[in-house]
């Protein structure tokens, strides 16, 4: 709870945050329907320089060409979504504000589905998804703007926007060709990290990397988002610019994640909450913690999704099964964490 107070504990936590994703990645490289022993994974990793000579060829290809890009994708998507959730919570000073509840995810999905229907390229799909994510968050903010700045108004209007966009998604599905496009859209919507290759990673991860980096650089400033209006004014900060930057970064991270692997819900709610419970509200610790925990969380969930049963379970099903009870728990507990 009070991590920042003792320097020793702080160091321990920082070390844990660095080690956690590395360890998780390593363990998850072993796990799968084709199990690779720890020793083999080590050998595969070490023999990267000489292109896997003297190592089991099948293991080598599985580790480097199948599992590693997928784990990387899981890590970055998890980190991106967690950061986005964290930032939305701070922006709206609302523990329930996340990409999902604000309708950002819905908007971005609609953009992505529309691009799928029209057969656009990956880059264009990212841009359109981002644009609709921005439109959704803008509409939510407009709808919630009014005299009463109550905690629930923003979430309620977010849910309205979410259902509006999910209706639009249905409209796209309805008009899609039922032989080929519809199944691919439906399957994509449920979320999967199967698509991961190094090339798709390169295109899709640039927006996540950029926005997470910007947010990390702003980490101290972001604390100002939680101050009251009057207090912020008297710090002399250009708060509208800060808010806009934060919104754009969070939306870009969300849209980019969604256009790569569909709607992976709830990560942006659960992970920031766990981080806030551990680290308080200081973004200097919260952001790195969200990256580390969010990335590790999605790696674990994705490993479960691909290895629990013979056929791959769509990842959003698993995150929702974990996320929905957690959300209810938080709503009922209320006092557990407040901004």
């Amino acid at each position, binding site marked *: 709870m009070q991590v*920042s*107070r003792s320097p020793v504990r702080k160091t321990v936590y920082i070390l844990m945050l660095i080690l956690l994703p590395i360890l998780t990645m390593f363990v998850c490289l072993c796990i799968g329907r084709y199990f690779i022993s720890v020793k083999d994974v080590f050998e595969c990793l070490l023999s990267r320089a000489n292109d896997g000579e003297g190592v089991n060829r099948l293991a080598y290809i599985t580790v480097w060409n199948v599992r590693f890009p997928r784990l990387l994708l899981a890590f970055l998507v998890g980190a991106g979504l967690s950061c986005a959730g964290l930032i939305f919570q701070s922006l709206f000073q609302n523990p329930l504000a996340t990409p999902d509840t604000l309708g950002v995810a819905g908007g971005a999905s609609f953009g992505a589905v529309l691009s799928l229907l029209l057969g656009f390229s990956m880059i264009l799909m990212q841009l359109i998804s981002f644009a609709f994510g921005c439109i959704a968050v803008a509409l939510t903010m407009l709808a919630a703007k009014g005299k009463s700045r109550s905690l629930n108004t923003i979430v309620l209007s977010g849910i309205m926007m979410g259902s509006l966009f999910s209706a639009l998604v249905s409209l796209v599905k309805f008009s899609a060709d039922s032989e080929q496009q519809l199944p691919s859209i439906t399957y994509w919507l449920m979320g999967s990290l199967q698509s991961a290759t190094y090339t798709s990673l390169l295109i899709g991860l640039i927006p996540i990397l950029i926005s997470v980096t910007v947010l990390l*650089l*702003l*980490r*101290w*400033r972001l*604390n*100002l988002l*939680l*101050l*009251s209006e*009057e*207090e912020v*004014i*008297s*710090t*002399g*900060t*250009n708060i509208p610019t800060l808010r806009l930057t934060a919104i754009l970064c969070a939306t870009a991270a969300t849209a980019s994640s969604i256009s790569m692997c569909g709607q992976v819900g709830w990560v942006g709610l659960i992970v920031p909450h766990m981080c806030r419970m551990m680290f*308080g*509200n*200081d973004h*200097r610790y919260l952001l790195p913690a969200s990256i580390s925990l969010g990335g590790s969380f999605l790696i674990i969930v994705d490993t479960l999704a691909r290895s629990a049963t013979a056929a791959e379970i769509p990842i959003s099903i698993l995150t929702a099964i974990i996320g929905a009870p957690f959300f209810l728990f938080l709503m009922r507990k209320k006092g557990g964490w407040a*901004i």
Partner: protein
Amino acid sequence: MKLLIDHASFHYKNQKDLFTDVSFTIQSGDMVSILGPNGSGKTTLLRAILGILPWACGRSILDDENISDLSAAKLWSKISYVPQAHGTAGSYTVLDSVLFGMTTKIGVFSVPSKEQIEYACSILEDLHLLHLRDRRCSELSGGELQMTLIARALASDPGLLVLDEPESNLDFKNQIIVLDTLSRLCQKGVGVLFNTHYPEHALRRSNLSLLLDHGRVLYGPTAEIITEENIASAFGVKAIIGEVETNTSQIKNVIPISLIAKSTGSEGSSSESSEKNEQEHTALSANSGMLASISIILSNFEESEKVNGILHDFNDILFGRMGMPYRKRNLYLININLDGPVRRIEELYHRLSLLPDVSVKVTYEKDTTEWEEQK
């Protein structure tokens, strides 16, 4: 530092003026209290002065520049504003809270440097808060929280400190801690402007006061503004300003007595007329000449300069003066004789009594008219 409010008026959208034609000046070392009944717009006035709300007409001028033309960073490095304490985010530590006050000095993409953290700690130390540095604001008492917010305001090293009811909701001890801090800052040359519900705090602390009286704005030396007459008019309360004598000074105190009945029936009007007589009487004596003698003991040698500075402003009524150092105990004794309007004598006495480390008392000649009547 000089803040000039120039013929300013303010009204909310589609409403009539909350206050009209406000003009006053605050300079370094001034301590100005703003008083007024609930709903008279004290907070609004502060916000308008700072440019957070726009004036309907008129302007605020800070060191020859219109506040609305200044960049936020520049304005808030010269002025600090301490809003009312409730509503601050409680999850940050005291040290973090103070660092927020230095935002303009910390780069957009950076975190506070070691020197900046040390500076924030030195401010906390000055205000005797260093032991709280790692506590969360939500765990602080009301007084500690208010002091933390003052520490934050001081972190930007401002020339003017503006506070919204800094001592409301605090117990006696914390009120004194907060007000002592403000007085100390004032002596260091910081201008202080604050809202208060306590006329006696204005009387005891500030050299200038501003009273909001139903759209009318009274401004001037505190002793002239905080009078029984003005309190009756602004608050609708009959109050007595009494004096309590201690070993070192005579302390003014405002004692509210009763509501003033609105002038409806004949009964009301008669009480009002007697009131008026009384007021005329006091007004008369306030302007009539009196002989007085003030004795001052300074427990700090350096204060004598400040005392001389104040006395200089009252040369016209000063006719005798004797000052001597008492080196054995490092004290300085001053005796002055005055002949002038009671109003001026009171103002001089009031300004002297605001100095720390000064004991001061005033003795008036016997009121001869009263004496004759009794005979």
